[in-house]
């Protein structure tokens, strides 16, 4: 059965115009599965990729989780992967013309998971952060 990556809800981010907001969310893969890190060891492998696609903020750098180098039965060399619980942090600039009040920053997280014997189709899941700009 294909593994489901779970993303923990992020508390509302309270910020103000002109500020820099740093937002971290946690994601969890079930035991026994891995996903490629954002810098996989082979060009054919699909990297973990977070994209912010809509909202009042400007993404100004994404920090992916530190990859583990793990050896699997199907690979001669260790692979650069993430497993279990991991965090992704994004630094946002809050524009001076950002609208006051509640809004949301939306994006997608793409990952491709495998276990030691098989791989599952790449998936893209939505991510969303609730904002309160003052």
């Amino acid at each position, binding site marked *: 059965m294909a593994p489901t990556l779970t993303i923990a809800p992020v508390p509302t981010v309270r910020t103000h115009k002109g500020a820099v907001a740093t937002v971290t969310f946690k994601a969890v893969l079930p035991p026994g599965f891995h996903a490629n890190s954002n810098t996989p060891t082979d060009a*054919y492998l699909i990297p973990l990729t977070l994209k912010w696609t809509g909202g009042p903020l400007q993404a100004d750098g994404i920090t992916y989780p530190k990859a583990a180098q793990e050896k699997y039965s199907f690979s001669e060399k260790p692979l650069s992967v993430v497993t279990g619980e991991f965090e992704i942090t994004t630094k946002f600039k809050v524009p001076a013309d950002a609208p006051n009040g509640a809004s949301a920053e939306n994006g997608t997280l793409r990952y491709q998971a495998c276990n030691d014997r*098989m791989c599952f189709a790449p998936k893209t899941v939505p991510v969303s952060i609730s904002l309160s700009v003052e």
Partner: protein
Amino acid sequence: MQTLRSKLRFAGIAIVAGILGLVACSPERPAKKVVRDDSQRKHAPDFALKDANGKLVHLADFQGKVVLLDFWATWCGPCQEEIPWFTEFQRKYKDRGFEVVGVSMDDDGWKAINPFVARKKINYRVVLGDDKTGDQYGGLEALPTTFVIDRSGRIASVHVGLADKKDFEDAIEKLLEAPAVPGGDSSVSANGPDADHRAGAHS
């Protein structure tokens, strides 16, 4: 004392007899079944998928041959492990009526597949798969998923996930030795080939 010695002697004899009995009664380990019995084989669904030159390839094109149908993707590590085996099988068994057909499930299509095929020196037919074909073959929960099809177009074994090279070889050898079943062909199965296969299993 005499009684104790007798008891010990009896116990010793009983243990040795038990061990000998166990050895004598152990059934021979049954040979691993690498293909389904004739009566359990279902027809492999036909398909019409394009190769890198845009030419339509049908499963029926290989009628009368043993076919190893491999659903794979360039991003699938376990698939990469198996591909050199399939290249070897294609070279080794081709003249005996055997073909490997690789069905790539890459969303990026030939842009991703062509460089990979060149790099891996793949010597067999590769076509671009689609969801319809995947559904016909049971939904392809995971990759690699590989079907070994007999000369009559029936599925003789299914392997989900990285399989054992020897299991493939044994299945191919066995199927190459068997004649096509009269009346068997590559006709389309209405209900998919194998509704009961599950990830991680081979049957």
